[in-house]
C-alpha cells in the first residue's frame, strides 16, 4: 500500500528538488504544502503519514507544525529538511517529536539515507 507523503517547503524550487530526490520505487502518494498552516490542514485530512518538513517558512514555521502535531495528537512521522544548521534547532525539533534532521542542500543519497535511518523507507 502506498504511503501518504507530505512535502512542506515555502520554496517551489525546494519542493521540486525533494520530489525529484525521492527514492525511485518508493510507493508514495504525494501532497505539497507551501507553509505550516497548509501542512496542518493536510495532516488533519490524513495526507501526511510521512512528512518532509522545512523549518523557515512564512505564516507558520516548521517548529509550529511540530507543536500542532503534538497538541492535536496527529499521527505523523516527521523528517525535518532545513538550512537552519544550529545545533539548538536540531535539538528543538527532535524534542518536539521529529524522527530525523537533514541539512540543506541535500541530494538523493542523503535523503534516502535519512529516510532509512528513520525507518520510514527501506531500500530494495
Amino acid at each position: 500500500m502506498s504511503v501518504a507523503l507530505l512535502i512542506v517547503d515555502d520554496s517551489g524550487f525546494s519542493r521540486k528538488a525533494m520530489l525529484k530526490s525521492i527514492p525511485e520505487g518508493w510507493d508514495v502518494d504525494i501532497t505539497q504544502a507551501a507553509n505550516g498552516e497548509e501542512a496542518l490542514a493536510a495532516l488533519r485530512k490524513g495526507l501526511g503519514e510521512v512528512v518532509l518538513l522545512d523549518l523557515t517558512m512564512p505564516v507558520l514555521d516548521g517548529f509550529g507544525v511540530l507543536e500542532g502535531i503534538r497538541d492535536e495528537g496527529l499521527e505523523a512521522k516527521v523528517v525535518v529538511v532545513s538550512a537552519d544548521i544550529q545545533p539548538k534547532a536540531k535539538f528543538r525539533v527532535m524534542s518536539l517529536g521529529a524522527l530525523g534532521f537533514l541539512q540543506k542542500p541535500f541530494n538523493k543519497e542523503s535523503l534516502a539515507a535519512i529516510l532509512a535511518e528513520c525507518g520510514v523507507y527501506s531500500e530494495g
Partner: protein
Amino acid sequence: MKAEPLNVEENEVLQEVINIGMGQAGASLAKLFDVFVNLSVPRVSWVNDADFIDQVEKLVEGHGSSWAGVRQAFYNQLEGEAFAIYGAAGCQQLAGLIGYVDGDNGAEEELLLDVTNILVGACLVGVAKQIGKKLDFVAPTLVGMGKPISDLLYKRDREWDQCLLIEVNFCLEEGDFSCHLVTLMSEASIEQLRSGLIDFMESY
C-alpha cells in the same frame, strides 16, 4: 549592454540558495552571541544600477541620517561589491547583545565589521559554493556611521550592471535585529550566477 535580470525560475533557485547561505550565517551569529537565532525567509529583489540608491532607500524605508554601512568587495568568477546597511536600532541591539558600553564607537565599529563579515561571507560564499563558482573577498571596511543611506552607497569602486538587494532579519531571544545587504555585480558575474543556478537546478 546591461545584463538580463534573472527570470522567475532562476530567481526562485537563487532565493533558496540564499536561504541556505543565511542558515549558515545564522549558525555563525548564534555562536558569536551564544544565543538561538530564529531565521526568517530573506527577501530578495533586483534593482537597476542607474537609480539603485533611490530604490534602496525606498525599499528599506531608509530616511533620516542614522544609518551605518560596511562595504566589502569580492572578486573572482563572481565580482562586485556588497554593502551591509544597519539602522540605528540594529546597531544598538548588536552592541547590547555583546555587552558593549554605550558610546564606545571603536568597539561598535569592530562589531559591525565582524557581523558584516559573517553575513556577507556566509551569504555570498554559500551561494558561490552551491553553484560551483569561485569567490574571494577583500576585508570589510566601515563606510560611515550616523549617515543617510545615500552617503553610504555613494563610495563605490565603479558602476556595476545589476544590484541584488537581500533583506535579512534575525530574531534573537534577546531582541531582533535586521540588516539589509546590497550586492552590486558586473554583467559577467550575472551570467556566471545564471549559469551556476541553472546547473544547480539541473543537478536535481
